[in-house]
């Protein structure tokens, strides 16, 4: 089991870009009109999860 990572629920994401602007690792990008976490870069600081205004980012093992 690896460390937990942030994962965007693409059905819930409204593409505001907030998560991308606060990510200290440049691990989140916009992809096809939805935010997307590059797993390799994610250090699971949880900042994007807290920031999401609609609760579309969750923890994934």
């Amino acid at each position, binding site marked *: 089991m690896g460390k937990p990572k942030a994962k965007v629920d693409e059905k819930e994401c409204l593409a*505001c*870009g*907030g998560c991308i602007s606060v990510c200290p690792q440049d691990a989140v990008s916009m992809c096809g009109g939805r935010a997307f976490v590059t797993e390799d870069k994610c250090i699971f600081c949880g900042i994007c999860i807290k*920031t999401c*205004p609609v609760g579309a980012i969750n923890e994934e093992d």
Partner: protein
Amino acid sequence: MKYDVVIVGSGPAGSVTARFAAEAGAKVLILERRAEVGIPVLCGEGISQRVDNWDMLEGKRWVASKMDGAKIYAPDGTLVTLSKEIAGNETGYVVYRDIFDQELARRAAKAGAKIMMRAEVTGLTKEGEKITGIKVRQFNEEFDVEADVVVGADGVESKIGQWAGINTVLKPDDLETCAQYTLTNVDYKSDYAEFFIGKKIAPGGYVWIFPKGKDIFNVGIGILASLSEPGMPLKLLDKFITSHPKLKKGEPIRVLAGAVPVARPVETVRDNLLLVGDAARHADPITGGGLTTALEGGKIAGETIGKAVEDQKFDKETLSVYEAGWKEAFAKKLLRNYVVKDIMLDFDDKTLNMLADSLKDYKFEEFSTLSLVKALVLKHPTLLMKLKPLLRLSEKSTKKE
């Protein structure tokens, strides 16, 4: 493909930069990731009527309604009013941001700028350390666009700055995380922008109600990301609406999420590159408003690029005319309001009630955050001591605000 300048993003800052660069003779390309300029709308859609003086937008198709002032409600309901009658100067519009953006893009196109849709920028191209253009993906094709200047107009989530070595990462206490409904069939008459503050209503931010004409209202919330929890903006907004006697009977015709930088501006210039609009963190840290600064900054950026193309000089020093220009135009206001934001965050609801009570009959000299801040400092010199030197600094530029 070779252009003088390639602009990433067709929002207001990007299109205005494009227009003024093209009018000065530059060969300009705008790249837009989305399938339609201005859509989806990610904005509260309020703007100062000062925009009328700038020859940025033709016609009035982008205006949804005019506002006569602002009403600010303290946590206990105490009302502070900034009205047109008292202030006597321009107040604000509620705009259709999709039409607004498309009108600015039209002006850019009219000036000769090219626009490419569904074009996602995936990186910068470099020769050694020198930025030479960008990498693009469009309809499953990948190609490079060469340019002497790359402009990052890519919004709050800007990547261009980071790729060029400018640290644009926002701390969670420098970002407002937002949600907004456009409600229809609301049986309510208001010509004012209404703001509701308080720790329980919107931690580190506020709820807004903007009248959009007829029975339509933009009702939104911004919460400081450092004080937020997953999904909190939407939850608190729902709570606000269901407990509001008039709004609760409305029905949504649009929901959106948003993110607004409430930070200090960043460095905006490198050799062959500059940042404009939200990408440059040019939004007001108190109100979150970023449209006027995007337009003002975009014009200065476009003119600077025009001159650079004429002289065929694209180094940091040449492009720094832009940085000096926006600093002259609005840096003092942004920095002052950043300090005000910090001070306000320390105030509990009781203090906010007390402040509102002291201003409830105040005759404001003009419709601006500056006149509000001035009044607060006048009434509570010790509480707002930190602001005094900043206010004196900004006196000179008051007329421009």
